[in-house]
């Protein structure tokens, strides 16, 4: 097992965001996490990355308890995240942002190579490579955030709404990319509002509601579940 979350409880002051979430991700899988606004998806990802300390519960990554590790050490274990709302480094250029993505790596030559690959995937970023990331359009920033995460060559990638604000063609492209990197060996935990797309590429999925897992199972099955259809697929 790659990642296992056991009975996670998280609060923001008086607000209880997660009330005992348990789930797991197997090596090589794409696992989708879906749910309404405020269900606790982002909170789950941020807790995994060590940005939020849980009240209780444990996070086991490749057999190691990482619940109490600081975020930078978690990243060093091969676990990277595309955060919600892009969070690019606005006062750094596009190119520098990508370099930051490769911060944990030391293979200079390959880094150059990988930047090229990112530019191939998102030609728009190459056109803008000297521009300050803060002045990019919303979608361009989203591409950059994705590109930056790819630069770290993670073992497990956490994606928080990677398709938000992207043009339809790019949404397609993003999901293709996710599939592709998954095939090349990266395990993926995906949070998406675009449940339709998410379920179509995922192996398994969890449905989160007000801080609790209410449904889980095979992605295909869930996509056909009438309850899910009604609540999350808008059908």
């Amino acid at each position, binding site marked *: 097992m790659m990642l296992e979350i056991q009975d996670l409880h998280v609060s923001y002051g008086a607000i209880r965001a997660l009330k005992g979430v348990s789930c797991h991700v197997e090596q090589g899988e794409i696992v989708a996490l879906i749910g309404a606004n405020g269900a606790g998806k982002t909170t789950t990802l941020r807790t995994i*990355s*060590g*940005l939020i300390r849980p009240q209780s519960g444990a996070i086991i990554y490749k057999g190691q308890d990482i619940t109490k590790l*600081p*975020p*930078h*050490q978690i*990243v*060093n274990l091969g676990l*990277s*995240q595309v*955060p919600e709302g892009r*969070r*690019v*480094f*606005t*006062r*750094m250029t596009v190119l*520098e942002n990508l*370099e*930051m*993505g490769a*911060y*944990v790596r030391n293979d200079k030559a390959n880094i150059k190579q990988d930047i090229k690959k990112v530019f191939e995937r998102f030609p728009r970023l190459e056109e803008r490579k000297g521009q*300050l990331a*803060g*002045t990019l359009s919303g979608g361009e920033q989203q591409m950059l955030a994705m590109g*930056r995460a790819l630069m*770290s060559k993670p073992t497990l990638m956490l994606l928080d709404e990677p398709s938000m604000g992207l043009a339809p063609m790019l949404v397609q492209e993003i999901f293709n990319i996710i599939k592709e990197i998954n095939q090349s060996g990266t395990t993926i935990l995906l949070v998406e509002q675009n449940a339709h797309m998410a379920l179509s590429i995922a192996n398994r999925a969890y449905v989160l509601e007000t801080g609790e897992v209410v449904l889980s199972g095979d992605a295909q099955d869930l996509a056909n579940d009438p309850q899910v259809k009604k609540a999350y697929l808008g059908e």
Partner: protein
Amino acid sequence: MLSQQILNGITLGATYALIALGYTMVYGIIQLINFAHGEIYMVGAFVGVLAVTVFQQGLVASLLMAMLTCVILGVSIERIAYRPLRRSTRLAPLISAIGVSIFLQTLMTKLQGPQPVPFPPVITDALYKIGPIEVSKVQILIMVVASLLMAALTFIVKYVKIGKAMRAASEDYDTAALMGINVNRVISFTFAIGSSLAAAGGVLVGIYFNSVSPFMGVTAGLKAFCAAVLGGIGSIPGAMLGGLFLGVAETLGVAGGFDTYKDAIAFSLLIIVLLFRPTGLLGRPIQRKV
């Protein structure tokens, strides 16, 4: 006469620049006006005196001792007084910094008295005549050290990995952490560099002006901070430029008969520059994108 005055101004400016570099570094990373910086500079100067008098050290060793002490001091201050406040309002660490600065000032007064002490002669000063201008060895030393430090800093921030990490951390701690950056270490490192610069400044200024006092950090710190802002806070060449600009302007102000308004010159210039370039001479303009 004028050229001599300009040289006077440049030397004064170089001392401002030395302190301003530290301000700008710390500000650049954690957006904190570290008002205790002037006090670190003051402590550095006293350690320098101590090294020379009590431990009988030469210039280089004293400089290193002062820098090392201040690195420890600066890093501890960050640990104790700023780190717990990292995620609160921007003004909270500012107040904490003022508290630290009051503390250090009174502590130093307690330890060594309110009186200034002279800096013992560690190097034999000599005067060189270049045409109509006279330059002293100490003046040259200050200018050389300031330029070297600036070059070194620029190199670190621009080309060394931790320098880039500093810039990333300065924008967004969480996202920087998500890149694998140890934000605490980066910030400690920033304080270490900033404080060692302040210490070096303290020792050199002590030698040049020949006096060290518990209150020396107050005005010097303020002027240096102005210099940093004038040059564009966060910008390393900006700090240098701002320092020199201020030093020369003040000196020429005195030479031109505005000596009673000397202390207003720096600030008037500052306000005028800010009105035309709201982020200082070399500061990047703020981009508005919504």
